[in-house]
């Protein structure tokens, strides 16, 4: 179990730490965490499938200015470890991962906003001294310490949690298991709603239904649906541009009244 726990720690350091060292390149997303955890723990396929399911659930949560609603890295690492290492049913692992993601989000907020605030003074001091080297050292050392420390949650979760959790899951009756699987199937609705909130407007809401119907009734592949979306966006943008130009020419005519060709165009 300690080997598995170390792999969970390593997964968090690589994915969570690496994400922020390499320009938020999204290796912290469950889709990628699942693959990396799968490789480290020796079952790529299971890792990838769990990652894909959790991606759909955690889709709406991205770290926006330090305010996160869920932290998917620890959750995904634990879910893969539980299924690959402790033989817990995939549906149950995924369901367990969701509250883990919510709890570790609080740990992450605490670490990022409060613990790191303790370094305010040393940062100000180094900068005021013009100590470039000291700043760079602090930058990278803090990075490593932060994620090495955060990875301990996943380590302890696997080391202490896997066996008792497996024992409990073994005792779960069939109807509760069905409920757990239904949780996994319905929770992505929350992730999708979070995304929708970001882009939703009365004028554009119909496009959400377009995508829904294209998939559920026509069963089109995602890439084809993306292309259809782009087609609609381009048609709309061209029309908007025309309207926009018309309006602007109107304004220009009123304001300046000197540009002959424009005026003729407009009244033509």
């Amino acid at each position, binding site marked *: 179990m300690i080997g598995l726990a170390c792999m969970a720690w390593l997964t968090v350091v690589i994915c969570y730490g690496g994400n*922020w*060292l390499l*320009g*938020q*390149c999204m*290796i912290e997303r469950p*889709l990628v965490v*699942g693959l990396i955890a799968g490789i480290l723990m020796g079952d790529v396929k*299971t890792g*990838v*499938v769990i*990652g*894909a399911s959790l*991606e759909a659930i955690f889709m709406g949560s991205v770290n*926006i200015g330090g305010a996160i*609603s869920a932290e998917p890295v620890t959750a995904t690492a634990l879910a893969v470890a539980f299924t690959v290492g402790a033989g817990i049913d995939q549906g149950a692992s995924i369901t367990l991962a*969701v509250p883990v993601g919510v709890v570790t989000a609080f740990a992450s907020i605490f670490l*990022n906003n*409060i613990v*790191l*605030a303790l*370094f*305010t003074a040393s*940062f100000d001091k180094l*900068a*005021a001294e*013009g100590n*470039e080297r000291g700043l760079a050292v*602090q*930058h*990278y050392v803090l*990075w490593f310490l932060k994620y090495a420390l955060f990875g301990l949650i996943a380590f302890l979760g696997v080391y202490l949690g896997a066996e008792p959790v497996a024992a409990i899951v073994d005792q779960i009756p069939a*109807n*509760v*298991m*069905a*409920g757990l699987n*239904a*949780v996994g*199937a*319905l929770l992505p*609705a929350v992730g999708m*709603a979070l*995304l*929708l*909130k970001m*882009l939703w407007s009365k004028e554009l809401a119909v*496009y*959400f239904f377009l*995508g*829904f119907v*294209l*998939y559920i009734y026509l069963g089109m592949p995602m890439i084809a649906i993306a292309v259809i*979306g*782009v087609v*609609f*966006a381009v048609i709309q*943008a061209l029309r*908007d541009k025309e309207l*926009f130009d018309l309006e602007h020419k109107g304004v220009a005519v009123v304001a300046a009244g000197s540009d002959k060709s424009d005026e003729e165009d407009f009244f033509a």
Partner: protein
Amino acid sequence: MSTMTKTTSAEDKKMLNKIFLRSFSVFASCAGGSVKGGADGWLYSIQPALNRYYKDDPEKLADAMRRHTTWYNITQNVGTFAMGLVASMEHENSEHDDFDTESIDGIKVSLMGPMSGIGDAIFWGVLRVIAAGIGINLAMSGSPLGAIMFLLIYNIPSILCRYFMTYLGFQMGTNFISQLYEGGLMKLITKATSTVGLVMIGAMTAANVSFNTILSIPVQDADPIMVQTYLDSIFKGIIPLGLTLFCLWLLKKNVNVNWILVGVMVAALIMGFVGIV
């Protein structure tokens, strides 16, 4: 874009490329937490510019470094615009004694809101969603290709944007963003990207939210009627669609997302317990 990079001198390019590379770690440490945001990574990123323009004046250099310790946060794929812009302003400051250094901080602060707004919407709201939609579909069958496609689709445009934004900021100057806004072009771009995003979220809702009831109505001398068949004949995916829109409605009512998560979990468990699913 290529004509833009040509007009910069070799020394400018060297500096901007350094800023571009350093900017990847901008939020790596966040020393100062909620007090400073990504200020230490910001200072680390623009240090090549400060070193270049104040290399003969250690006092001015230290002063510049002290000035750049204030709160910073911009979506990092577009934040390099602010870095390039500030580099050009520090250049001005190093050559003119009467330059108002407060304007540097002012520009930086005023860029944060609008630039993060554009950056979050385009990179997280749209590009990531499209990449994830395609990635999840491939990964569901257990293929590592899903994660790889996801990373490629997201990162290639992101890194290109990060690179060109560094140069654009250095050359365009401060009027650029406000011109985009005043011209109304920004609204056009946002609308087009939102359209694609919404189509993708619709497709992903259909692909990832699922509901299947085992309830059936017994009929004398015939097969029982499956409730799910009825639901499907009304509208396929009516429960997932309804639930998603209900969650959206709750979010718009400012219900905490964690309560919604808990609510969905409890509802699903109860349905399992009483034998609906």
